[in-house]
């Protein structure tokens, strides 16, 4: 039996209903507090403020779905940012070349992470912690302190708008399409299978090494895009630009409904997560709360989002967390054996046990 069309639709949209609803609520709240928000300029500003995080979060989400963590996202952005600010010229040719190079650097950074994790089997959280400091150091070598600049034309390619449609929106649509296409390839299904249950995936012939390396490279590609956008938005270089973004990126991933234990969620939904976060922050500013509180606030949102996911699950999932602590591989992924798994999970509900590879 193939599901009825409504069921098919439900399955197709399953991962994003939650984030879309949350985003909708915050948009309404924002529009009420700040009616001026509805102007084209304001919308473009909103997009430009969210897109760096959104692009980086798509990359991070791919790694998380594959069952890993990538802590090097921030310094990857920094490296790309300073390279562009220092080396990119004013000519269109140079700018086109450096766009390609920026993406290549992103992929290279992902390749290194992928090799460390997939071939040398270093736990991703440690491997990417190390590469994070490595690239942070490289960024400082390229540019010691904030400076450099890029041309307005370059900035406008990314941050401008056409006929009221922000270029950022077009970019995000393209990214979403690319991800949806990847999802439908062998690599895509392998990423989900490995993140869901690595042993089961391998037993079914999934190629662990190329698939994981592919996931990290793909993430790197999106970091490259994020780095380009960051540079266009700030039109200068800062070796520490990316570092503080790590927490924000992870929060966007979780708000987008991607499970931190891997195998579940949709990377494109992390874009929604980024927008939710930007709007919450903007609403706070509008209410007169100092920007000094931003990171305290973002941390709290991340914890709240995780807690909401845990509480949304059923008690049995708590047990799985515990058996995990005892060291056994949870024998039965939903911890409930043949008695039917939790049926009414919130969209992209995430179990409490955070799997780290």
């Amino acid at each position, binding site marked *: *039996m*193939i*599901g009825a069309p409504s*069921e*098919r639709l439900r*399955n*197709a949209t399953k991962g994003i209903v939650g984030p879309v609803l949350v985003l909708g609520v915050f948009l309404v709240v924002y529009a009420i507090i700040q009616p001026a928000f509805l102007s084209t300029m304001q919308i473009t500003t909103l997009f430009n403020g969210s897109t760096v995080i959104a692009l980086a979060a798509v990359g991070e989400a791919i790694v998380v779905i594959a069952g890993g963590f990538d802590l090097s996202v921030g310094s990857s952005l920094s490296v790309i940012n300073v390279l562009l600010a220092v080396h990119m010229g004013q000519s269109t040719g140079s700018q086109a070349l450096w766009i390609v190079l920026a993406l290549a650097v992103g992929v290279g950074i992902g390749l290194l992470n992928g090799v460390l994790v997939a071939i040398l089997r270093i736990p991703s959280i440690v491997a990417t912690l190390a590469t994070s400091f490595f690239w942070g150091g490289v960024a400082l070598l390229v540019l010691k302190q904030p400076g450099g600049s890029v041309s307005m034309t370059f900035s406008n390619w990314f941050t401008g708008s056409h006929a009221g449609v922000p270029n950022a929106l077009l970019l995000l649509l393209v990214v979403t399409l690319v991800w949806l*296409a990847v999802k*439908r*390839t*062998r690599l*895509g*299904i*392998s990423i*989900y*299978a490995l993140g*869901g*249950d690595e*042993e*089961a*995936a*391998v*037993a*079914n*012939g*999934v*190629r662990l090494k190329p698939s994981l390396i592919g996931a990290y490279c793909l993430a790197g590609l999106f970091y490259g895009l994020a780095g380009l956008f960051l540079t266009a938005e700030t039109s200068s270089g800062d070796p520490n630009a990316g570092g503080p973004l790590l927490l924000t990126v992870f929060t966007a991933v979780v708000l987008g409904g991607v499970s931190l234990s891997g*195998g*579940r969620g949709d990377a494109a939904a992390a874009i929604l997560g980024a927008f939710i976060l930007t709007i919450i922050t903007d609403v706070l500013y509008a209410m007169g709360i100092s920007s000094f509180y931003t990171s305290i606030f973002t941390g709290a949102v991340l914890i709240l989002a995780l807690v909401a996911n845990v509480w949304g699950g*059923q*008690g*049995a999932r*708590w*047990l799985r967390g*515990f*058996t995990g602590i*005892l*060291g*056994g*591989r949870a*024998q*039965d*992924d*939903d*911890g*409930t*054996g*043949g*008695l*039917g*798994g939790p*049926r009414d999970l919130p969209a992209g509900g995430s179990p409490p046990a955070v799997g780290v590879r």
Partner: protein
Amino acid sequence: MTDESRDWDGATALEVRKVVKAYGATMALDGVSFSCQVGEVHGLLGENGAGKSTMVKILSGLVSPDQGEIAILGKIVRLRNPRMALSAGTATAFQETTMVPHLTVAQNLMLLREPRGRFGFNSPSLTSAAAAEILSEWDAGEIDPDRPVFDLSLSNRQRLELIRALSRRPAIALLDEATAALGAADVDWLFRQVAKFKSSGGTVVYISHRMGEIRELCERCTVLKNGREVRTFPTSDVTDSEAVEMMAGRAIQRIYAAGRSEPTGSDSVLVADHISFPPALEDVSFELRRGEILGMAGLQGHGQKELFMALFGACRAKGSLEVNGKPLRMRSTHDAVAADIGISLVPEDRKVEGLMVSMEGLANLTIANLSQFTTVGFIRRHRERAAATKTLLAVNASVKTLDQEVWALSGGNQQKLAIGKWLLAGTRVLLMFDPTRGVDVETKAEIFGLMQRLAQEGRSILFHSTDVEEIVNVANRALVMYRGRIAAELEGDGLTKEALVGAMLGTAQEVVG
């Protein structure tokens, strides 16, 4: 190694020759040879630990043999990973299913062989349709291909595992304890699918320790014991008891030499009243008497694990517990330990049983009881060592284990340490979850002997085993879990293997009375 000139019989589907696999000092396979013909259903029979599962892992590419060779349809193959095994023509339905929980039924069935739609991308609708077709072809059309696998019952997951293996049309399908989670109707279903696969020219290696199934399905079978093949014979030539004798040798008497326990008293040490932890546990009540070994039977996933966790305070179940007549609030494992309840839980993964594997035996034994050896915060090493040594002697473990790191110990010694830890803590109620999983026959006998001794000293043991034989031979009374409830209580002469299995499959609920 690759002697192609050897004459392989053209009709031989699988030939396993002198395959050896050692894990450290343990010989899992010690030169096993057997072969099966094209179109045959070949039984691979043996006790737990005989080497069946290692054989399956080798044939499905999860483990590489140290020595020996394998030929499929006359060609020597090297199965270095599951992918090579699949392309060489084997496909396995594993006992512990290898379904990815958050993918749908269709995504799991069609994993890496998804039909391509436009532009060469996988097409969810075509995948779903192809899965539906496969499901109905294998008489499982009622399973919705668009449902995530975690949403399915355990038996349906196991059926999917079988369907996935057979639908790949491998030269050789390996079915590893494929009926472990199936009820009687589903077992019939499985027999029909195997027959269908066979009639289309497929070869099946059917791994089981259930003689009844082997007899019904297999033309010939090979018995494994202690990592070697005992004999290959036509199934009809051998009686059940002869087969059991081949599987167990004379060890069967030795394992259970200690006999069944008789409770030393009739008073209840632990009373569980209406324990619920939905959906895994529903309203479970029972009493554990002084000096009793109470068996707890049930197929995997019917609530035993959750019950043990609940009794140990590791999950917040509803209901009440009484220990020695006093009500006990179970908020954490600490409450359980304070009430003299100990647990020995062996998860699937050996080497981890509530032990700290990177620390030596001594620390593992005493860490839960440090206050016994501490003066103003400092540990008195002599006293600690003396007490630990005494405990080790009590559980028949080698004194050498004190200074060895736990990961390097044999499964049996690890198990003894886990038990010893709770003895040292003065535990009166011991929860033993499948304590003989993966230990050799001799250690099994020792563990059962130890259990009987502990019971005679007045300690009470709740004992779960996946092996029905063990429960029948060790416990005097047994409870059977089915779908999270206690489906039957069997005692004395009524505690037979047949009655237990019936209740485990949910076919004998009337026993509850």
